[in-house]
């Protein structure tokens, strides 16, 4: 019942600090070449003449780096905020995301700090033995400007 013991300690508004990442030019361009080869993600000169005004990361790159930070930092952060010390809770695949926002560009050289806040928890009525957690996640740059926000969902095994 380690999942249930963890679930019972969860309270909305618990906030996880997920660390920071500096977006270097080479990784921004590498991601863009593979998945999002638009000029403002690839070419500094053409990016200057775009709406963005400078070379910036694909929004999917920003979201994927959030995911990496979530994987690295969330397990110990859940323990810190809940005080739970049992066996590692088992999290399953996410059903999806709502309200994904890229309110400002992530420019080359920007350092983005990520966090997540628990917004809800409920026992999944359609899938016995699992709970659904809703989490608001975001990223801010070194000036405090928000560059990423989204409402996500995580499944948690209870038994």
């Amino acid at each position, binding site marked *: 019942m380690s999942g249930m013991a963890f679930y019972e300690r969860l309270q909305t508004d618990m906030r996880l600090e997920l660390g920071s990442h500096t977006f270097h030019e080479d990784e921004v361009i590498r*991601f863009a070449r*593979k*998945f*999002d*080869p*638009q000029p*403002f993600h690839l070419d500094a000169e053409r990016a200057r003449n*775009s*709406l*963005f005004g400078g070379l910036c990361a*694909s*929004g*999917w790159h920003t*979201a*994927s*780096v959030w*995911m*990496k930070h979530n*994987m690295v930092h969330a397990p110990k952060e859940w323990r810190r905020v809940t005080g739970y010390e049992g066996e590692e809770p088992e999290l*399953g*695949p*996410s*059903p*999806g*995301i*709502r*309200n*994904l*926002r*890229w*309110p400002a*560009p992530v420019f080359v050289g920007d350092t983005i700090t990520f966090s997540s806040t628990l917004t809800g928890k409920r026992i999944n009525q359609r899938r016995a033995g699992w709970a659904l957690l809703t989490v608001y996640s975001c990223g801010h740059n070194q000036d405090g400007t928000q560059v990423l926000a989204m409402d996500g969902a995580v499944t948690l095994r209870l038994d």
Partner: protein
Amino acid sequence: MLTYEDFPAGKSIDLGHYTVSAQDIIEFAEEFDPQDFHLDANSKQAAGVGGLIASGWHTCSILMRMMCDSFLLETASQGSPGLDEIRWLHPVRPGDVLMGTSEVLNSRLSRSKPTLGLVHLTHTLKNQDDTVVMTVSGINMISTRDGVVS
């Protein structure tokens, strides 16, 4: 160059196809989403979901590449402020051939910048068995013809 005027409500765009390899899935997962069911086909976690599956963020990134190759690179694209919804409906597995469409739900001009159009698109990706693996809906910003000229 396609502009805002080329994306009326109801327009449907074929996204072509994209084959996903096990190596692609593992490489993406190692960098961004290191969970066992994205990394190791023989893991206990993978067994629970029927084998190796792609990160949902990988599938989103693949959709982006398909959009770029089928229309965005020849469009006066100005990025995206965000998405209403991403739904990961079915796992993407090694060898899957993804295909799909982007469809214009509605569009309007920006209130603050009238040479910028906001095009609300819904994207559907299916696999080779015609199973929908992901739907995404959101806004793409596209310059008007006047916006490109000026």
